C-alpha cells in the first residue's frame, strides 16, 4: 500500500518524474511546454523559500483577500441534528467569495516575478476566472479566461464579474462545453503563447507545477483553521472531521494540508464529490466510483473514461465540481487511505443548501452544499464531543438562478 511521509509537505512527496506514490501526477505534456514548465518550476521553487516573497504573499492575503476568514459554530444546525457539533470555516468571506482567490493572487504574483504581462486561466463555476481577473486587475496584467459555453450560461453572474474586471472571456464550445474543455483550450492557448503568457490552472490539476502552486496557495485555509481551532477548544479536538467538496480538489487540499500528519482517528478527512442527478448514471466522482488511472491535462490520475481512453462526459448541478478527473494529490490521499471520499447527489446538495440557509445565516454555494450534505448525513450518528468542520468555500449568489428554479423563489428570502 502507498504511504504518506510525515513531516514533509504533501506537494513535495513525488519522485523524480513528479509522480506521487510513483503513480499520480507527472508532466504528460507536449514538448513545447517542457521548457516553460521547467522555468516555472524553478521560479516557484525559488520564490516559495524566499522570505520577501512570503511576506508579499501574506501582505496581500491579509489586506486584499481578507485573511483570516471566519470560523463559526452552526448552533441551530447542530441542535437540529442532535449529534456532532457542527462548525463552518467561512472561506466564502474571502474577497471575491471563494477560495479560488488564494491561487489567483499567488499566480498573479508569480507572473509579475516572471516578468510576464499576460495571464490566462480556465474556469468552471466562474470563480477561478473571476478571481484571476480580479488579481490581474490588481497587479496590472492582461487577462483571458477560458470557459465552456454551458458554464457561461449557468454561471452568468461570475461572467459579468470577469468582464467588469476588464478580462476577456474566451467561450469554449467543444465537447461537453464545461470545465474539461475549458482547461484543454487554455492549455492549447498556452502552447501557442508560452513565450509571453503565464498560465494559471484553476485547481490542483494539470502538470505537476500547477498542482503544487495551487495547493501551496490554498494551504492558507488550514493554517488559519488550526489557529482558530486552538482558540476555540484550547487544542485540536480529539474527534475532528474535516468535510470538503472535491472538484479538482484545491479547496479540500488547502483545508486539510496542516492536519496531514495527525492520526486519521483524530482528524478525519472526508471529500465529497458530485454524485450528479439522482436516478442518473452520470456524475463527476472518479474517486468514489473507482475510476481507472488515466492521463488528463498533463497528469496521471483517476479519471472517468471509456475503455479506449476517451474522457467521459460528466454531470453535476454544480459547475465547480463538474470535472471528470481529480487532483493527483487526492488520488494519493485515497490510495494511502488518509482521506475517504463519498458523493452527494444534486438533490442532496440542494436539500443541504435549504437546511443550512434556513437555520443559519450562511448561504453556501452548490459546491460546498455537497459537503454540508455529508455533514447532515453523518452528524446525527456521532457523539456530541465530535467536531465537524465544513469548508463553506463558496457563496451561493452565483447559483441564485439554479437554486430558485429547483427550490422555488421563496427559498432565497431566508
Amino acid at each position: 500500500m502507498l504511504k504518506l511521509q510525515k513531516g514533509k509537505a504533501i506537494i513535495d512527496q513525488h519522485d523524480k518524474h513528479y509522480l506521487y506514490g510513483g503513480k499520480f501526477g507527472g508532466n504528460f505534456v507536449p514538448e513545447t511546454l517542457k521548457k516553460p514548465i521547467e522555468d516555472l518550476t524553478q521560479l516557484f521553487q525559488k520564490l516559495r523559500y524566499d522570505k520577501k516573497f512570503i511576506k508579499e504573499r501574506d501582505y496581500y492575503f491579509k489586506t486584499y483577500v481578507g485573511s483570516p476568514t471566519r470560523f463559526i459554530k452552526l448552533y441551530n444546525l447542530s441542535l437540529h441534528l442532535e449529534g456532532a457539533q457542527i462548525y463552518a470555516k467561512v472561506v466564502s468571506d474571502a474577497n471575491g467569495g471563494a477560495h479560488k482567490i488564494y491561487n489567483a493572487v499567488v499566480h498573479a504574483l508569480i507572473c509579475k516575478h516572471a516578468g510576464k504581462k499576460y495571464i490566462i486561466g480556465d474556469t468552471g463555476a466562474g470563480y477561478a476566472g473571476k478571481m484571476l481577473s480580479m488579481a490581474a486587475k490588481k497587479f496590472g496584467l492582461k487577462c483571458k479566461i477560458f470557459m465552456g459555453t454551458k458554464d457561461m450560461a449557468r454561471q452568468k453572474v461570475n461572467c459579468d464579474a470577469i468582464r467588469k474586471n476588464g478580462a476577456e472571456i474566451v467561450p469554449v464550445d467543444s465537447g461537453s462545453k464545461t470545465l474539461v474543455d475549458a482547461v484543454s483550450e487554455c492549455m492549447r492557448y498556452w502552447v501557442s503563447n508560452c513565450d509571453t503568457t503565464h498560465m494559471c490552472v484553476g485547481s490542483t490539476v494539470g502538470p505537476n507545477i500547477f498542482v503544487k502552486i495551487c495547493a501551496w496557495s490554498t494551504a492558507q485555509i488550514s493554517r488559519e483553521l488550526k489557529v482558530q481551532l486552538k482558540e476555540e477548544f484550547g487544542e485540536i479536538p480529539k474527534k475532528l472531521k474535516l468535510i470538503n467538496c472535491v472538484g479538482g480538489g484545491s479547496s479540500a487540499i488547502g483545508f486539510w494540508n496542516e492536519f496531514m500528519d495527525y492520526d486519521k482517528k483524530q482528524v478525519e478527512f472526508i471529500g465529497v464529490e458530485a454524485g450528479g442527478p439522482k436516478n442518473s448514471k452520470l456524475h463527476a466522482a472518479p474517486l468514489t466510483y473507482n475510476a481507472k488511472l488515466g492521463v488528463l491535462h498533463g497528469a496521471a490520475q483517476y479519471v472517468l473514461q471509456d475503455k479506449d481512453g476517451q474522457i467521459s462526459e460528466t454531470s453535476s448541478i454544480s459547475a465547480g465540481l463538474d470535472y471528470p478527473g481529480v487532483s493527483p494529490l487526492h488520488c494519493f490521499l485515497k490510495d494511502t487511505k488518509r482521506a475517504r471520499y463519498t458523493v452527494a447527489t444534486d438533490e442532496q446538495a440542494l436539500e443541504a443548501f435549504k437546511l443550512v440557509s434556513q437555520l443559519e445565516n450562511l448561504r453556501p454555494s452548490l459546491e460546498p452544499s455537497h459537503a454540508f450534505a455529508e455533514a447532515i448525513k453523518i452528524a446525527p450518528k456521532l457523539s456530541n464531543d465530535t467536531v465537524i468542520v465544513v469548508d463553506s468555500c463558496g457563496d451561493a449568489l452565483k447559483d441564485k438562478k439554479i437554486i430558485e428554479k429547483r427550490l422555488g423563489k421563496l427559498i432565497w428570502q431566508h
Partner: protein
Amino acid sequence: MAALISLAFLKAKLEKRPALVSYIVAGDNNKKLTLNILKSISQYIDILEVGIAHNTAVADGVQIQNSSYRALQGGIKVKDVFEIVKQFKKIKKNKPIILMGYYNQVLQYGENYFLQKCKNSGVDGIILVDLPFPENKSFADKCKKLSITFIQLIAPTTSTIRMKQIIKNSQDMIYYISMLSTTGGKLKVSAKSILNNYLKIKKIDPKKNIVIGFGITTKTIASLKKADGLVVGSLLCKSISQSLAKKRNPLIQLNKIVRTLRNKIQ
C-alpha cells in the same frame, strides 16, 4: 532489412527532395473513407501518419479537432485504427505508416498489448504527443525492441542540452515542431529561422532524419524543402471538412492538394 521509414527517406533523398509526410485522422468520417484516402494519396506521399482521435487533445488546433470529433462521432475505436492499417498494408506493404496519438490511449490498452497490436497490423512508427522525453524512455525502448520507430519531438522551446539528450535517445526519425502553436496554426515565424533551428538539430547528429511540421501548406512548403521531410496535416483535415460540408467525396480535393504539395518540393 532496413526500416521502411528509413527507406522512404533514402528514396526521397535520391530524388533530391524532402520526404512528404501526410497526417489524417483515422475514421474521419468513417473507416472506409480513411482506407480509401490512404490508398489514394499514397501515390504522392512517402510516409503516412494516421491520427488516433482523442477527445481531450491538448496540442491540436481546430482543424484536427474537427476531424477527431467526426471520427469519434462515427464511432471509431482504437481497434478499428489497427484494422485500417492492416487492410492498407495488405495492398501497400512497403508504404510506412506512423500512428499518432495521446498517451492515455496507449495506457488504457496497456503498453505491451498496444505494441503487439501495432506489430501485428504493420505499424512502422509511433508518435505520442504528450509523452515527452524522459518520461517516454521505457516506452521508446519497448518500441525499439520490436523494430517500431518511436519518434521524438523537438520544439522551438527545447534547450540545447535537452536537444542533445533527445537526439541521443531517438531512432532514425525526429519531428521538429516549427513554431509555438497547436497544429494548424498559421506559420508565424520565417522559413529562415525555422531552417536555422533545423540545422542546429541536424548538426548534433547529421545521420538522423528530421521532419518539420506545423503550419505547412501549399504556400509555405517550398520554402522549407531543404528539410529531410515535411509534414502536412491540418491542411488535409481542413480539405476533408470542406468536402464533407459540400457533400463531395473528399478524395478528389485531397488528391489535388497532395499532388500540388509534391510538385512544389520536386
